[in-house]
C-alpha cells in the first residue's frame, strides 16, 4: 500500500469516527440554523422570538436570518433548485402558500416531508392542504391569510349600520349598503385595484372553488364558484361603490386616509390599518360577504399567508425539524406572544384558547377580533393551488377589462380557459 492510499484510508477512518461522534452527540451538537424569509418586522421577528425560546433548552445553537424581497427569494430559490445545486441553501425557508405546490411539484425531493413529525390535525385545514403532495405534508404552517371585512364603524354607524348589519351577508347586500352609504355620506365603500386578481380570488375560495381540482387539472369551465365570482365582481365594481385604484400604495392610502370606508383582505393588513393611531376605535372587522347561490359558499376566505419548509439537504436538518416541532408546533404561549407583538395569526388551532386570542382590541372598538379571525380561519374551504395559479391569475386579470365593460361571462371564461390550457401545454 502506497503512502497516498494509506493517508486516504486514514482520513476515511477519521471521517467515519467523526460522523459517528456527530450522530451520537445528537441534539447536543451545536448547530447554526439559517433561515431565509422576507419581513424583518413580521416573519423574521417571529422567527427570532421562536428561536429565543428554543435556545433556553439548546444554548449551543445559533440562528442566522437572511432577508430577501419575497418575489426575489422565490426567483433565487427557483434558479438554485433548477441548477440542482444545494450549496448555500438555508436550513429553513419561508414560502408563500400560493407558491408551495409549484415548488413541491417542480422540485420533488428538495423539501423534507414533516408528516411524521408534526400533528397536522391541530393545524388549520386549508394550510395543511396547500403543503400536501401525494399524502405527504411538507410545511410548518405559519401565518394565516384569513380574510376579514375591515370597515370604518364610525362612519357606517352614522349612516345607520351596526356590526350586526354586516354579519353573514351576501355581496349583493353589501352593494345595497354601499349605495345607501354613498348617498348619505358621499363616500365610496371599497378601493379595488382592477389589475389585481386578489379581490376575485378571495370570493372564489370562499365558495371552495379554484382554477384547478385536487389533481391539478384545470376546472375553469363549469366552475360555479368562478362564474359567480366574475358576475359578482362585475356587479360590485360597476355599482358605484368601488373606487378603482392603481397599485398597492394607492390602495392602502385610500382606506387609511378615509377616502374610502372599508376593504376586504387578509388579516395581515391589520398592521397597516393600526399604524394610523388617530383612527383607534373607529374601525371594526366583520366576516367577508359570501357568494350568493353557490353551494358551499361561506363567509370566510383566505388571501396570502406563508409557511416554513425544511430543505431535504439542509446542513442542520434534524435540529431544524426539532426546533420547528418544539416551538412552532406546540408552544401555545409563543403564539400569544407573536399575536400581541407582531399581529401574526398562526395556524396552530389550539393556540386560540390562549389569553391573547381571547382578548378584545380597543382599536377595533373592543371586538374580540382575534377570536373571530381564528373562528373564520377554521371555516376557510381548503383548495389546491396547483402549479399554474400564477398563470391563471394573469389570464384572469387580462380578461377583467372586458368583464367590467359588460362582456359576456361565457366568452370571458372561454378566453381564460384557452389561455391557461395553452400555458399548461
Amino acid at each position: 500500500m502506497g503512502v497516498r492510499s494509506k493517508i486516504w484510508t486514514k482520513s476515511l477512518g477519521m471521517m467515519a469516527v467523526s460522523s459517528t461522534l456527530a450522530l451520537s452527540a445528537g441534539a447536543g451538537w451545536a448547530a447554526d440554523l439559517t433561515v431565509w424569509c422576507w419581513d424583518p418586522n413580521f416573519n423574521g421577528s417571529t422567527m427570532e422570538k421562536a428561536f429565543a425560546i428554543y435556545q433556553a433548552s439548546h444554548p449551543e445553537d445559533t440562528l442566522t436570518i437572511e432577508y430577501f424581497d419575497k418575489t426575489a427569494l422565490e426567483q433565487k430559490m427557483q434558479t438554485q433548485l433548477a441548477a440542482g445545486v444545494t450549496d448555500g441553501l438555508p436550513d429553513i425557508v419561508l414560502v408563500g402558500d400560493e407558491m408551495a405546490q409549484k415548488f413541491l411539484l417542480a422540485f420533488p425531493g428538495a423539501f423534507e416531508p414533516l408528516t411524521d413529525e408534526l400533528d397536522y390535525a391541530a393545524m388549520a385545514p386549508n394550510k395543511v392542504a396547500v403543503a400536501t403532495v401525494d399524502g405527504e405534508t411538507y410545511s410548518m404552517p405559519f401565518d394565516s391569510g384569513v380574510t376579514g371585512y375591515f370597515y370604518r364603524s364610525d362612519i357606517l354607524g352614522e349612516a345607520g349600520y351596526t356590526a350586526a348589519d354586516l354579519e353573514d351577508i351576501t355581496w349583493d347586500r353589501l352593494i345595497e349598503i354601499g349605495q345607501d352609504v354613498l348617498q348619505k355620506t358621499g363616500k365610496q365603500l371599497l378601493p379595488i385595484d382592477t389589475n389585481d386578481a386578489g379581490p376575485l380570488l378571495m370570493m372564489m375560495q370562499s365558495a371552495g372553488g379554484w382554477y384547478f381540482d385536487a389533481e391539478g387539472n384545470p376546472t375553469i369551465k363549469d366552475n360555479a364558484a368562478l362564474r359567480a365570482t366574475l358576475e359578482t365582481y362585475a356587479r360590485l365594481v360597476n355599482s358605484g361603490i368601488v373606487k378603482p385604484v392603481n397599485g398597492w400604495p394607492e390602495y392602502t392610502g385610500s382606506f387609511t386616509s378615509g377616502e374610502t370606508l372599508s376593504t376586504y383582505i387578509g388579516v395581515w393588513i391589520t398592521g397597516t390599518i393600526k399604524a394610523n393611531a388617530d383612527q383607534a376605535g373607529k374601525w371594526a372587522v366583520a366576516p367577508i360577504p359570501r357568494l350568493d347561490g353557490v353551494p358551499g359558499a361561506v363567509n370566510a376566505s383566505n388571501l396570502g399567508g406563508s409557511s416554513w419548509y425544511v430543505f431535504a439537504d439542509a446542513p442542520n436538518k434534524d435540529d431544524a425539524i426539532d426546533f420547528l416541532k418544539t416551538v412552532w408546533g406546540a408552544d401555545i404561549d409563543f403564539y400569544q406572544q407573536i399575536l400581541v407583538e407582531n399581529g401574526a395569526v398562526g395556524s396552530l388551532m389550539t393556540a386560540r384558547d390562549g389569553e391573547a386570542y381571547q382578548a378584545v382590541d380597543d382599536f377595533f372598538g373592543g371586538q374580540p377580533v382575534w377570536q373571530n379571525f381564528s373562528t373564520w380561519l377554521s371555516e376557510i374551504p381548503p383548495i389546491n393551488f396547483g402549479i399554474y395559479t400564477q398563470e391563471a391569475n394573469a389570464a384572469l386579470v387580462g380578461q377583467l377589462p372586458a368583464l367590467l365593460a359588460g362582456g359576456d361571462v361565457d366568452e370571458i371564461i372561454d378566453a381564460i380557459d384557452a389561455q391557461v390550457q395553452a400555458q399548461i401545454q
Partner: protein
Amino acid sequence: MKPVSILRHGFVGLVAVWSVFPFVWMAVAATNSSADVIKGRTLPGGYLIENIQAFMTAVDLPRVLWNSAIISGVGTVLTLTVSALAGYGFEMFRSRFRERVFAGLMLMLSIPFAALMIPLFVMMAKAKLINSYSAVILPMVASVFVIFYFRQATKAFPRELRDAAKIDGLSEWQIFAFVYVPVMRSTFAAATIIVFMANWNNYLWPLVVLQTNDKFTLTLAVASVGIGYTPDYGLIMVGAIAATLPTLLIFFLLQRRFVEGMLGAVK
C-alpha cells in the same frame, strides 16, 4: 421672444419637468413619513432624520457600499481591460476568421441572461464561488456589448499612429498602453460610465449568486429593506437616494468625456 420660440421653450421645459419629477418626488418622499407618502403628499416633510435613522438601522450602509464599490470598481476595470483589448484586436489585426468570430459574438447578444443563469450558477457552484465577489464580477467581464462598442470606436483610431509607433520600436502592448489608451480616453470614459452603472445597478445575478446579507450590494440591500407587509416608503426613498447618488457622481465627473465619447472619440 417669437411665438415659435416660446412654444419650443415651453415644450422643452415640459419634457424637463417630466424627466426630473421622479427624482424630485424621490427626494421629497424621503422627508415624509410612510403614511404621508401613501397619501400622495408632494411637499417636503420633517421625517428625513427619522427615515435616515431607520435606513441605517436596517442596512449596514458602510458594508454594502464597500461591497458595491468593490464589485463595480473591480468589475469595471476588468471589463474595460478585456473589452478594450478585444476591440483593439478585432479592428487592428486582419484574419480570415475575424468577421465570423465577431458575428458569433454578436449573436450572443441575443441570448437573454435568464437563459444563461442556471448554467452559470452551476459553473460558479463547481468553482466553489457561490456567495463571493468573484461570482458576481466574472460573468460580466467579457461584455459583448462593450467589445462591440470599443471595436466601433477603434475604427476612428488613426492607423498611422500605430505605424509610426511601430517604426519608433514600440511593441504591440506598448502601443496599446501608451498610444491607444490616451487617444481613446473619451471612449474609455463613456465605457466606464456604462459599465460602472450596469454593475452598480445589477440586480438579478447578484441576487441569485449572493446568499448572505453581509455580501449584498447596495442595490440588493435597498430592494430588501422596508418591504414586507407594511412597506416603509420613506425609508425606501432614502435607500433609493443612497443607491442613486454614487452613479450620479460618476456621471457628472465624467460627463464631458462621456458626451465626447458618444460623439466619436478621435478628433
